[in-house]
């Protein structure tokens, strides 16, 4: 740093030699480049080289001929995709799962955070937080396994209780009408507690004097929440909602893959699961890449749009 600031004015005078100035700065930073090298190579090889593979969407990919040997077919893969029935199924499922999640899942961390924020007993609060944060760290395999032990028809605990009461088993896991609700409930169990953190932090920033003033004005606890706490966290809620809307193309893909079964295929098929089944398992690489590309581009547009809106509102976006 010191050396750098000393060389700067000298370099400034030699404006005509800006190329050599850049070179000098680069040579001076050579050990920094050495430190960054593994990271740069990693990004190039594992994040940017695969982008090349997206071109397969415009090819009739044949694994034996490889990338270069395969024939270019323009937008045929895309027009095939858009004219297929499964495309609209995936579009509907992605949209429906996200709508379920936004309606039922988004408000819950706010509600839970409000409840935790009202707890005065520190130990009770901390124990509660420790418990509700825990499921966030479990793998989807563990969460799905627990779901099976609770809900499956042959070993599920809930079904044992139901049959204990003399009723027939309920097929929670293979009923297409229950599938979206099941996914939402699972996500709730896993993530609602963790989702409170950001709202609790926003609530911690509220000036205590506002509550004191509200109490003097005779506000009840509910009134304090409604007129002090909620307005204080409104910006946070709005920002998170817009960012959440930016992820409308994404669905919990590992979760769906684990909960999927042939009986619920019509409501569980989304872009990523389809890309996986048809591309990796079915060997139709071009179709899989086309689906993935479509989803990636739509997702990118939505994320950029939501960030643009957040920045327009005068907040820091995700980047």
């Amino acid at each position, binding site marked *: 740093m010191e050396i750098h600031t000393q060389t700067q004015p000298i370099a400034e005078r030699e404006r005509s030699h800006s190329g050599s100035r850049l070179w000098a700065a680069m040579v001076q930073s050579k050990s920094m480049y050495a430190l960054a090298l593994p990271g740069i190579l990693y990004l190039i090889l594992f994040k940017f080289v695969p982008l090349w593979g997206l071109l397969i969407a415009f090819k009739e990919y044949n694994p034996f001929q490889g990338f270069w040997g395969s024939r270019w077919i323009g937008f045929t893969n895309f027009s095939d995709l858009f004219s297929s029935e499964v495309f609209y199924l995936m579009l509907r499922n992605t949209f429906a799962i996200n709508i379920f999640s936004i309606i039922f899942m988004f408000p819950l961390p706010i509600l839970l955070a409000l409840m935790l924020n009202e707890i005065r007993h520190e130990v009770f609060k901390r*124990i509660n937080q420790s418990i509700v944060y*825990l499921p966030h760290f479990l*793998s989807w395999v563990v969460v799905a396994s627990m779901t099976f032990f609770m809900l*499956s028809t042959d070993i599920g605990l809930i079904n*044992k209780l139901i049959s204990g009461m003399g009723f027939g088993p309920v097929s929670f896991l293979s009923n297409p009408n229950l599938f979206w609700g099941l996914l939402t409930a699972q996500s709730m169990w896993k993530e609602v507690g963790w989702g409170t953190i950001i709202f609790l932090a926003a609530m911690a920033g509220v000036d205590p004097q506002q509550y004191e003033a509200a109490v003097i004005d005779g506000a009840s606890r509910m009134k304090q929440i409604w007129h002090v706490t909620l307005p204080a966290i409104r910006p946070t809620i709005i920002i998170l909602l817009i960012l959440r809307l930016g992820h409308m193309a994404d669905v919990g893909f590992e979760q769906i893959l684990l909960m999927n079964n042939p009986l619920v295929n019509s409501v569980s098929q989304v872009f990523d699961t389809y*890309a996986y089944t048809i591309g990796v398992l079915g060997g139709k690489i071009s179709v899989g890449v086309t689906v993935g590309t479509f989803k990636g581009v739509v*997702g990118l547009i939505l994320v950029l749009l939501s960030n643009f809106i957040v920045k327009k509102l005068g907040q820091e976006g995700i980047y």
Partner: protein
Amino acid sequence: MSYVATKKLTVFDYVNYSLLAVISIACVFPFIYVFSVSFTDPAAYVPLQFYLFPEKWSLAAYKYILSTNSFLNALKSTVYVTGIGTALSIIISFTFAYVLTKKHIPGRKLMLGAVVFTLVFNAGILPNYLLMKEMGLLNSHWSLILSGLTNAWSLLVIKGFLDSLPPELEDAARIDGCSDIGVFWRIVIPLSMPAIAAFVLFFAVSYWNTYFNALIYLSDAKKWTLQVLVKSLVIDSDSNGVGTGGSDDRVLPQETIRMASIVLAMLPILIVYPFLQKHFAKGVMLGSVKG
């Protein structure tokens, strides 16, 4: 809030405390149930009854599962991937993030732009799969290690942390003749220990929990990691069951074994959980507010 003048508990409080207690129980109940069944003596286990705690405790299910080769193999694979993966992740993430904090380096903006790009766009499942295939890494644990090595979120959070370190110490070391790498090693790394601890946990948990990458990259069952094995034990065998083989090592009721395998798959997470919670309540703030 504690600012309210009265210390008396109101109806509001009773309702609130009760609701939170119910929510906590709903969160913790599946754990207790799975633990309880996994420790139940198989002879005393009655499939259609439910006990909160086993009537007769037993480690039989754990003894059985820890004696099977498939489980031990998967455990070894998972520990291998988690150990090597976490170590490499820390090295690559901290060195790269450190360079990203240095404003005078030509090309820094480009590198930062590349990182942010990976945050918003990913080539997707198949291009990544084809890359692993081309590199001959299918059915190698290195496919898992390499695919989770670092990510934009971690790099940006670590960069944010390193930005917050006081620059005076680095400057002083440079005046004393320390090289760039010397400064990184002797000044930055020791100052970053809290962040390194947090990210060791973060990377270790994500390697341990990886399921999908293992599913697509490892088709050879001998290479499977715990998550893939547990999935096949618990979910795939749901309708036919592992206990239908009839050989005498299958006398244990399958449920106790399946529950024990879940417990073992989440045990390391539960052990490090107190540390995770401490570090990540802060980390999530950095990540979601600042980025």
